[in-house]
């Protein structure tokens, strides 16, 4: 249907994107502008792949028995520096998955990659040791030499693959049995790669005008 394919933006940022005033999603990240429409992300990153990690039924006890809803965990990424994680709970599986995909797109975050040793070829690992925490689950990402691959449990491994990190050592603390928290902790760790101030960022940045101007 034609109506479905065309997107008319509702927010100011959406309008700017539609008019091609913004060249890349990194400009949006630079100013920490909240992305409220997932079509913006689709526009800049058409090659995003989504993957449902898990659908689990969560139950609530009511007078008339148990009320079951489905919680969907969806990880999305383009294997080249952008990942997103979406969690959505809904009465039907399909609705939960669809909602989680949209939320994952809204939460796409850039991933900074670096080198373990010699600065040769493309960045392949995390730039430094980063850690992320959610609940009691703590995940620590450590740079690894080229060719190591991702040394992690299947859950964070999937996330790191979609982020575009090729080699990485991981350490997990706390209760990793709660996989919901575990995956969120890894996501937080990946997000911290750009929060970490490394010496090469010491130079003063020249401020540019926000896309709104």
């Amino acid at each position, binding site marked *: 249907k034609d109506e479905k394919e065309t997107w008319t933006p509702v927010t100011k940022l959406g309008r700017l994107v539609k008019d091609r005033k913004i060249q890349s999603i990194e400009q949006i990240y630079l100013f920490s502008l909240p992305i409220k429409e997932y079509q913006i992300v689709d526009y800049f990153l058409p090659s995003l792949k989504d993957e449902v990690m898990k659908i689990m039924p*969560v139950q609530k006890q009511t007078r008339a028995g148990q009320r079951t809803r489905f919680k969907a965990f969806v990880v999305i990424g383009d294997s080249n520096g952008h990942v997103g994680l979406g969690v959505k709970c809904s009465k039907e599986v399909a609705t939960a998955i669809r909602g989680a995909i949209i939320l994952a797109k809204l939460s796409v975050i850039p991933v900074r990659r670096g080198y373990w040793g010699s600065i040769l070829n493309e960045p392949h690992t995390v730039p430094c040791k980063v850690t992320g925490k959610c609940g009691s689950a703590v995940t620590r990402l450590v740079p690894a030499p080229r060719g190591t691959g991702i040394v992690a449990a299947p859950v964070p491994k999937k996330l790191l693959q979609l982020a575009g990190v090729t080699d990485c050592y991981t350490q997990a603390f706390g209760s990793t049995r709660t996989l919901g928290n575990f995956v969120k902790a890894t996501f937080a760790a990946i997000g911290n790669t750009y929060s970490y101030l490394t010496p090469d960022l010491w130079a003063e940045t020249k401020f540019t005008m926000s896309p709104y101007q």
Partner: protein
Amino acid sequence: MDKKNGSKHSGGEKVKETTASLKNLSLGGSPAVLPKHGQKQVASTNNNTNTNTNTNTNTKNGKKPKKSTHHGGGGASSQNAAVAAAPKKNSGPVLLGMPDSPMQSADDTDPYVTKIGGVPLWLDQDLPAPAKYGICGACGKSMYLLLQAYVPLEKSPYDRVVYVWACNQRLCMRKAGSFRVIRALQLNPEYAQKLEKKSKPATAASTASALNPVVGASGINPFAAPGAFDMGNALFGGSGSGFANPFASANSTSTNPFAPPSGFGVGSPVLAPAVKSFASVTSANVPEKQDSSSESEDEDAAKESTEWPEKLSSFDPHYLYITEEVLEDSDAAKDDISQRYSHLLALEESVNKDDDDDNDSSNKNGGATWSGETYEKAVLPKGVDKAFQKFTERVQSWPDQCVRYDFPGTPLLFSYSDRTAQTLLPPNATQHSKHTNPSTHRIPRCPACKGPRGFEFQLMPNLLALLDVTSKKYLSEEEARSLKERKGAQVFDIGMEWGTILAYSCVQDCFGKKAQREDDDDDDNNRGDAERQRKVRYFEEVVLVQFED
């Protein structure tokens, strides 16, 4: 109407056959828009069956009636929508204004057109609104017309037009006075006659059918789609009074079905003069009148300056076509997911069959489980809340929509957490999702009749994209000069920026207290009639704006 509808011609023919049957319906249902100009075309599959039952519950209540379309009569343009699906919701269908073709500035002359942008056109060229309405209350510059809509109500003898102005300065956005909604009323003698004749439909029907040779075979056409009734009702709208003004209906039949694809531009000027001449004839018959009125209201109005600048700053005008909102399930998305994740959907089946936890908690992760999860609210980016999600979802089925009309109805809020929402919603509404229905008790009452105000329509952000508000051509001269001095900095001083604009207007559609008293006293007084005919009254209505963040 125009190019939008392939079915227009067929609709027109059906209409002729069913007109005779239409006369038996309550003619008061639709002070017809279409005989005048054919712009406001509405699919109202429900209007037909409900005009008889609903006339009492319509619009006069504060509540939203079950099925309410006030622009009585479906036009051919929306027959597509009508045929596609009846609205799924039980409550009255919301009418959407979708952008049509751009209007030529030269054609921007008809006050009965519904349009975006352009210059404001008055119901009577000699009685414009006070000029202060076009000035921003915050910065004093002149405002741009966003919307002019011809929105007569059922059972009302008045021509009713709403105007929405907004200031294009970014700095004025959040200040009071930068948005304005005006409602203009003018007594329309045709409608008034029609309302009177409503009490004698039988005689009207027979005489009208005899006099109107354009109407085809009498008798109900069993194959007519429900929408056709309304279209006919609207097209021949005042067929009851058709014999009084044969030009109007004749014009409508000849111009409407064959209106050129370029839009209303050609059709409307043909029709408008027919009506205008009638009005001007009556006003010519009435001597002086302007100074002899003893009502202070009129004196005040005369004192207020009605001097509008010669060259009004305005956006490029576009036509709007009106359609009912028909919501459909997004099957396309569902299919995609069900293909890729069919195994997961199977899981849903199994879980629903046996409420057994054991199947789900174990997996191959060496004992690590996913159990212990509970329902959690989604983590949303800043500025996204439940209201915004519902808003985008609703807009997605008709992404082009510029105006939503539902009088009196409920608005589609853009967010729950801004000042506007706080005005409309009970406190702490967002914490209990049951209470997120906007109510109007905190909205100021109509100053003329002290009656309540109800939500009438809202403007959608697509309007901003359509009108290109930040384009440099709307810079005034000094602004353009200072821009050059800044050497390449992007313009951001101009350009309005809002999420949605809600307009609330008097539910009773009052014409002002003194006029109503006059109506009671001078019913048979011809002089009073003619005087009232000419008068155009302007009322400022409440406008609430919701912004992002």
